[in-house]
C-alpha cells in the first residue's frame, strides 16, 4: 500500500502526495470510529428505569388473568426503537408453552390527533395472536405500572405478584437474543428465572422525564 503513485506517468499522479493522503486517511478513520463509538454508546445506553409495583395495581383498567400470568408491554406508538421490542415480544409469545394473558398498551398523550397512536407498531401489534391492544390515554396505565420508557414489559402471576419488569431488547432498537426475553421465556415456561429486571431501551413515554 505504499505505491501511491504507481501510475503510467508522473503527470497522471495527482498533486496531493501519498503521505498527505494517508495522513488524512488516518484522521478520517479516527473520526469515523469516534462517530461510530458515539452511536454505539447511544444505542447501548438504556432509558430511565421505572419501578413496577410488586402487586398488580388495583386501579388498573387492565384485567389480570386468574389462571395464567399476565404479560403487559408498554409502548410508545411512534418510537422506532420499540419495533425491536415488539418483535421480541412476539418471539416470547411464540416460545411460551403456556400462553399468558397479553396486553400491549400504546401511549396516547392528551391533545394529539385522532388515531395518532395507530401507527405501524399498532397494526403489527394487532396482528399478534391472543394479544389485546389498548390505547393508554395520557399514560395513566403506564403511570399505574410505574413505566416510563417505551418497551418496558411487566409479568405478573395469577396472584398479582410481579415476576418480571424490564426491557426485552439488548440495545436501542436492536432485535435479537437478550436477557429480558430469556427471562420471560423462562418464567412463562418454567416459572422461574435468575433475572427479574433488565434495562429498558426505548423512547421516554413522558416528556417531563427528560
Amino acid at each position, binding site marked *: *500500500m505504499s*505505491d*501511491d*503513485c*504507481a*501510475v*503510467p506517468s508522473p503527470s*497522471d*499522479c*495527482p498533486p*496531493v502526495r*501519498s503521505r498527505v*493522503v*494517508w495522513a*488524512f*486517511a488516518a484522521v*478520517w*478513520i479516527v*473520526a*469515523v470510529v469516534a*462517530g*461510530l463509538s458515539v*452511536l*454505539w454508546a*447511544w*444505542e*447501548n445506553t438504556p432509558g430511565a428505569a421505572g419501578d413496577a409495583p410488586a402487586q398488580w395495581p388495583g386501579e388498573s383498567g387492565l384485567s389480570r388473568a386468574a389462571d395464567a400470568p399476565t404479560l403487559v408491554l408498554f409502548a*410508545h406508538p*411512534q*418510537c*422506532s*426503537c420499540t*419495533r*425491536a421490542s415488539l418483535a421480541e415480544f412476539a418471539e416470547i409469545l411464540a416460545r411460551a408453552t403456556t400462553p399468558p394473558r397479553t396486553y400491549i398498551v400504546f*401511549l396516547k*398523550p392528551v*391533545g*394529539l390527533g385522532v388515531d395518532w397512536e395507530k401507527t405501524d407498531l399498532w397494526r403489527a401489534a394487532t396482528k399478534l395472536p391472543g394479544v389485546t391492544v389498548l390505547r393508554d390515554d395520557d*399514560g395513566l396505565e403506564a403511570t399505574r405500572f410505574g413505566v416510563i420508557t*417505551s418497551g418496558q414489559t411487566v409479568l405478573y402471576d395469577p396472584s398479582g405478584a410481579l415476576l418480571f419488569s424490564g426491557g426485552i431488547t*439488548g*440495545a436501542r*432498537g*436492536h*432485535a*435479537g*437474543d*437478550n*436477557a429480558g426475553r*430469556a427471562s420471560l421465556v423462562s418464567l412463562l415456561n418454567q416459572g422461574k428465572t435468575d433475572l427479574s429486571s433488565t434495562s429498558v431501551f426505548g*423512547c*421516554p*413515554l*413522558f*416528556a*417531563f*422525564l*427528560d
Partner: protein
Amino acid sequence: MTIAFQSGAGERVESVTRRADELFAQYRRSIHERTDRLFAGLMAFQWLMGIVFALWVSPLAWEGPVSRTHLHVWAAVLLGGLISLFPALLGLLRPGVPSTRYIIAIAQMLMGALLIHLTGGRIETHFHVFGSLAFLAFYRDWRVLIPATIVVALDHMLRGIFWPQSVYGVLVASQWRWLEHAAWVLFEDVFLFVACRRSIAEMQQTADRTAALEHEVRTRQQAELDARTARARNDAVLEVALDCVILMDEAGRIVQFNPAAERTFGHSSAEAVGTELANLIIPARKRASYRTALARYLMIGDTANFNRRLELLAVRRGGEEFPVEVAIAPISSEGAPMFACYMRDITARKQAERELHKSRDAERQNAEQLAELVDELRITQRQAEAATRAKSEFLASMSHELRTPLNAIILYSELLQEEASDEGDQSSIPDLQRIRSAGKHLLDLINGILDLSKIEAGKMSLALETFDVNVMVDELVDTVGPLVYKNGNTFAVETDGAIGTMFGDLTKTRQVLLNLLSNAGKFTRDGAITLAIRRSISDDALPCVEFVVTDTGVGMTPEQSRKVFDPFTQADVTTTRKYGGTGLGLAIVLRFCDLMGGTVSVDSRIGEGSRFTVRLPVQMVDAAESIPAGVA
C-alpha cells in the same frame, strides 16, 4: 541472413511484448479508474440511501408527545457523509491511484458498520459486507481485499468482545467467534482472489492478443500501403512511358494498355482491355505464329521468343501496318502467369535507316570522287612544286647571271660619274646618275626576288647566334638614319632598359627592322618615326622581343593593310610611282619573321600613319635543323 532474420523476429517479439505490457497497464489502470468512479458513485448512493432509510424507519425520536430528529438521521447524514465523502472525492480526483482504492475498501466496510447500526443490527445487513467484497473484486486487485477484510475482522472482534449481541445476535459469544466470521470473509476472499488472478491473467492474454493483432494489422496495413505505393508508382511509370506497355494474361488477353499504346495503336484502354492482343494489334497473317509461341511457352516453357528484342509488324486501328520493336517478358507473380509486352513504333527509325543507307551510298560515292580529286590535286601540287622549284632555281641562277653584269654597270656608272665630275663634264652626270639609280633599283629588285625565291624554295636558312639587341639597334640606327631623316622626319628609339641578348639570326632581324624603318621613312614626310623595343610574351607563351615601328605617314586603308605583306604589292599602283620601291620589302619581312618563329602585324589608318609590330623569340630555333630528317 539467418542472423538478420532471427534479429528481426526478436525485435518483433520484443515490440509485441512491450506493446502488450503497455496495453495491460492501460487495461488495469482503466479498470482501476472506472471502479474508483463506480465506488465514488456507490459511496454517494449508500450515503443517500442511509439517510432515506433513517428518515423512513426512524425519522424522529420521541419523548411522550414531543419529538425531535432521531440520532440515526444525524448519524446517517453526518457519519455517513464522513465515511463517504473522503473516498468518493479520492475516487473522482485520484482515480487509479492505489491509495484511493485501499481507502475506498476501508470506507466501504465502515459504511457496512454504519448500516448495521442504522438497521438495528439486522443480521441481513451483513450481506452488505459480502456484497462489498464482491464489488471490491471489480478492481481485479486482490490486495484491495486485505484492508477490507482487516476492517471487518476488527469490527467483529471489538463488537464480539464488547457487544456480541449487536453482531452475533446472542448475548454471550466466544471471544474467538469473530475469527469464525473473519474466516467466512476469508472464505469469500479466496474465491475473489482466484477470480482476480484469473481475470488478470485473462486481461494479460487479451493484451497479448491485442498487441499481436495490432502488430499484424500494422504489418498488413504497411504491406498494403507498400503495395499501393508500388502499384501507383508502376501506374505512374506506365502512364508517362514513351514506349507501349501492354500487360496480358495467360490467354493473351490484354489487362493493361498504357497511354503510349493508346496513342500508337489508336485504341483506347477501355477498348483494349479484355481483348486478345493478337486480334487487336497483330496482322492477321501473323497471329497464328504469335499464338503458337505463346502456347509453347505455357506448355513447355519455351522462351525462344521472350526476353529479347524482335522487330515485327503491327497493325493500327484502321489497318495500317507499321514496324515495331517488341520485347515480351513473362512476369513472375503468384497465380496465373502474365506477360509484359513492350513495343516501340520504329517507323521513323526505319525511315531514317533507309535515308542513312542512301546517304552513306552517296557519301561513299562522294568520297571516291574526292579521293580521285585529291589524287589529281596531289599530282598538280607536285607539278606546281616542281615548277616552283624550277622557277626558283631559274631565278636564282638568273639573278646571279643578272647581278654580275648589273654590278659592273653600277660600278662603271659610278666610276664614269666620278670621272665626269673630275673632268667637269656636268652634262653627263645626270645621265650617269640615272644609269646608276636604275641599276641599283634593278639590283634591289633582283636581290629581293632572290631572297623570296630562296625562301619559297626552302633554301633560306637561319644563321643563329647570340647578339645584344641594344647593340644591334644602335648599329641599325646608324645605318637607317639617313633613310629616316631624309623627309624631314624625326626618329626616336624607345627601349625598356636593357633588352639583353637574343639567340637568333642577327642579319635577318636587322633586315626586318631595316625594311620596316626604310618603309616608314619613305612614306612619312615631316612626321615622326619611332622604334620601340621591349621584352614581351608571345602568343605561344614564350619570351620574345617586341619591336614596334610607328610612323605618322600616309597610312593605309584596311584593304591595303590586308595586302601589304603580299609580294609585289604596295598600297596601290600610284604608290610605286610616287614613293618607289619594289613591293617586296614587307613580303620579305613577313617571311623572315615566319622563318625565325616570330610574327609581324600591322595597324594602320589612312592619313594617320602605321604601326608595325614584330615579335621574335628570344631563343630562336632553326626550323630546318629541328625538323627530323625524312619528314621535310
